């Protein structure tokens, strides 16, 4: 599981506000659906998304069953310093998926 796709513009100008997109493959099973035999399909969702730049948190999201499958999160960042952007997703059982991208500043 967990195909991650990131879109980080690079290189960017210093002080520029850039748009970052992060997508992860996940069913985000809400726990409100029923299977073919009427049994409740158990909830299985990602609960937290975090984006760090050089270890400092810059954006986070709390996800709930109301978030669609394969959550795509778009947010902004003011590019002040170059470094590594780390993207972390945590599911309800504490399992973690991580990916990173370089942020270059001209």
């Amino acid at each position: 599981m967990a195909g991650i796709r990131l879109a980080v513009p690079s290189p960017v100008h210093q002080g520029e506000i850039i748009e970052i997109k992060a997508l992860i493959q996940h069913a985000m099973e809400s726990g409100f659906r029923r299977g073919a035999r009427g049994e409740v399909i158990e909830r299985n969702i990602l609960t937290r998304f975090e984006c760090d730049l050089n270890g400092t948190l810059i954006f986070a999201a709390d996800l709930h069953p109301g978030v669609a499958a394969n959550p795509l999160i778009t947010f902004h960042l003011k590019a002040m310093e170059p470094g590594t952007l780390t993207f972390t997703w945590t599911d309800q059982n504490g399992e973690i998926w991580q990916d990173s991208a370089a942020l270059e500043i001209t």
Partner: protein
Amino acid sequence: MTAKPILTRRRLLELGAGTVFITASPIKSYAAQSDLDQARHTLFGERPIQDGRVTLKLPPIAENGHSVPLSVDIDSPMTETDYVKRVAILSPRNPLSLIAQYHFTPQSGSAYAAGRIRLAGTQTLEAIAEMSDGTLWSGRMETVVTLAACVVL
């Protein structure tokens, strides 16, 4: 003595009654305005909420409730002293009122977030933002959902 048939009239009636029971006791699949009020209270307490500064964008008509694009933009200078801390997206009709919560920092540059959400029917969504000075601001947007999530298996 004759062999007992597998499917007797009595057995059939029992099966029927069972099916009725299963259908009549679904897990709660709709919320009401009161659930939204409660979620709002859990998140922000009794603090006053002002209208404005929050722009919530959704398509006016969403054909598929399983995935509806949403964006929220909050008017803020986003400096170290004056920025948006978080914004909560609340629904009056989904099984769970709180859909998502986005947390910002001064490094965000602008308080903007977008994602895709599930909607269990036509409704007016509410976004409530908390600023660094503790004030709360809200914005609303109505969207018509033709195919609702949760209802379709």
